[in-house]
């Protein structure tokens, strides 16, 4: 069965492409141990346990399994950053998925929890991690239930716990869940939260979690999708994995495309080569813009990413090309705006999000985000002035000094400023509040100008008698 939406996997379309992490979504009972075992489940773990741990680590390194949580750092290299001889080491799974537009980890957790569990087991075996915490977003009741059920089944069947499958490998996997705070998705905030604290990012350096993480111990934080790749990799080998995608972005990637397209959906795409035009207009993907409208703009990589316009449609979904073009791929989320979109208002939905989610630890984000939201609200309500627009750039400059990344635009005659930016904040929440309003104002200035009240100078003259 290909294509179509299933009730248990809402929004997902399989298509006719390689499926590394979504192969079981076609089954109504994809989340059960029975189905998992009937479809090669826990075979990758068995293969791993038959080989020395360092060999499995090398395999993940050689396959260049890129992190799917946002930064795209290769997992094998990240594991290699842990200091030698310091024990215990922990695994914290980032299942906090809350970046605007992002919808993939929840599907993986709801539809194939055993695949994630097997990924955690393989990673822990390979990197010598002695306890695993699965941190799931608090608002995801079904994902928590499916994972709890899967963990219970897997413990009972001997896949988790003491002497797994009769081997020397032992691991507890603990289901942990949050309580609603976007910033907790940042890995050091995730660790703070897991220690029972307010989820505020830690100052870096020295707190790179691989060296100094949970309880001050070496800790690997990996995204759900990253770990979900490992069972397939172990089953099929590095050569098969790198045969998909490109040399710098091997394998597949899950992408959620939402907004004004004919068929919004979640797709597992071939990494590195699929273009935005394929994704937005292709028959097997979103099938064009709704109502035959024109495309106005799209956010290529989650709410934090600077925006693209039709000028960038032919770029592939490949970090090495999207970066120089002025944006990032982030968490695999594309949000599409058609010609009817009220651009300042659309930007406000994102700026408001980041302003509200600021943890308050650093001033440029706490104050700057709030200012941006207030000024933008004023402009959207038709009460803004031209000075407000200048002030948006000024406030932005205090969060991210220097030229802020943006896309090129032929009509406007502007060249791209490449990603990334410099920042005055601890984490990316502050810059993310600026990104949408900066993009909107740079690419669609006329929509703001039409909205604002132009100030006229009041002449001050001496009053004579």
């Amino acid at each position, binding site marked *: 069965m290909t294509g179509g939406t299933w009730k248990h996997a809402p929004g997902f379309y399989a298509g006719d492409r390689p499926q590394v992490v979504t192969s079981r979504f076609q089954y109504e009972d994809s989340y059960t141990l029975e189905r998992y075992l009937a479809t090669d489940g826990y075979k990758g773990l068995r293969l791993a346990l038959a080989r020395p741990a360092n060999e499995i680590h090398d395999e993940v390194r050689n396959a260049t399994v890129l992190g799917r949580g946002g930064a795209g750092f290769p997992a094998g290299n990240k594991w290699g950053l842990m200091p030698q001889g310091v024990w*215990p080491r922990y695994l914290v799974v980032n299942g906090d998925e809350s970046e605007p537009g992002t919808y993939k980890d929840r599907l993986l957790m709801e539809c194939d929890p055993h695949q994630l569990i097997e990924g955690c087991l393989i990673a822990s075996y390979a990197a010598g991690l002695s306890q695993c915490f699965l941190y799931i*977003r608090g608002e995801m009741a079904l994902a928590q239930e499916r994972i709890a059920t899967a963990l219970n089944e897997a413990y009972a069947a001997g896949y988790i716990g003491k002497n797994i499958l009769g081997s020397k490998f*032992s691991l507890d996997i603990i289901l942990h869940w949050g*309580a609603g705070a976007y910033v907790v998705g940042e890995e050091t905030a995730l660790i703070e939260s897991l220690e029972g604290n307010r989820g505020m990012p830690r100052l870096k350096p020295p707190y790179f979690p691989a060296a100094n993480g949970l309880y001050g111990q070496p800790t690997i934080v990996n995204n759900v999708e990253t770990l979900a790749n490992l069972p397939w990799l172990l089953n099929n080998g590095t050569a098969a994995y790198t045969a998909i995608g490109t040399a710098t972005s091997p394998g597949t990637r899950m992408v959620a495309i939402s907004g004004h397209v004919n068929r*919004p959906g979640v797709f597992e795409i071939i990494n590195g080569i699929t273009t935005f035009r394929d994704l937005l207009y292709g028959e097997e993907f979103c099938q064009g813009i709704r109502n035959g409208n024109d495309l106005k703009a799209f956010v290529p990589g989650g*709410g934090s990413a600077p925006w693209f316009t039709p000028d960038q449609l032919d770029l592939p979904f490949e970090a090495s090309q999207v970066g120089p073009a002025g944006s990032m791929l982030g968490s695999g989320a594309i949000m599409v*705006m058609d010609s009817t979109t009220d651009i300042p208002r659309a930007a406000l*939905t*994102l700026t408001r999000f980041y302003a509200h989610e600021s943890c308050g630890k650093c001033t440029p984000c706490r104050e700057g985000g709030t200012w941006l939201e207030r000024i933008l609200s004023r402009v959207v309500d038709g009460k803004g002035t031209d000075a407000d627009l200048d002030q948006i750039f000024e406030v932005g400059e205090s969060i991210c000094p220097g030229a802020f990344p943006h896309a090129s635009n032929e009509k406007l005659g502007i060249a791209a400023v490449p990603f990334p930016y410099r920042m005055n904040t601890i984490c990316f929440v502050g810059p993310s509040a600026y990104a949408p309003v900066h993009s909107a104002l740079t690419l669609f200035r006329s929509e703001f100008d039409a909205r604002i009240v132009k100030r006229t100078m009041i002449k001050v003259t001496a009053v004579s008698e």
Partner: protein
Amino acid sequence: MARITEENIRLAREIIGRYPKARSATIPLLHLAQEQDGYVTNEAMAHIGELVGASSAEVFGTASFYEMFKFEPVGKYLINICGTMSCALMGAEELMHHAEERLGIKMGSTTADGKITLERAECQAACTEAPCLQVNYRYRYRVTPDQLDTLIDDLSAGNLASEIPAHGTVAVIRQHIPADRAVGAVAPELVTENPVWLDGKAAL
């Protein structure tokens, strides 16, 4: 009112036992307290502090950071309508206005009968199914104003009681670690040696 009940203390101790440090159980225990009373009471926070070795102020400090914890009673059903970009592009504002008019309350407040609380929420990771909402963290996708009316009718009539537990309960299934399979949590300072499987192969 409401410290943690005897039965929940047993559960709380089981949960605490899974972590190398008791403090890590703070958020799960806050959820347990909210499940018990529908919101998190001051007494429960003081009790959680005793259980994990923190002051009640520290527990409140943690709890108040997180959106899901409520410190006053809310409706039996909490309807969170997503208002972030993808949902906004697909009509979330209209849905919120409709909900406000239908229930005669503003976003952020509760109906007089204490049944339904309305809240504006941020991205719920269902962006392709916009506009979407959650009732006590159970999803409804691509919601039209008519469907919202039906949902409210059903909630008021108690038709969804089996599918949607009262506010406070998130997941209805818990993790259970069988004693004979558990490795057991060890305080980090007590671990000094590398995991045994790192020497050679793990398989016997």
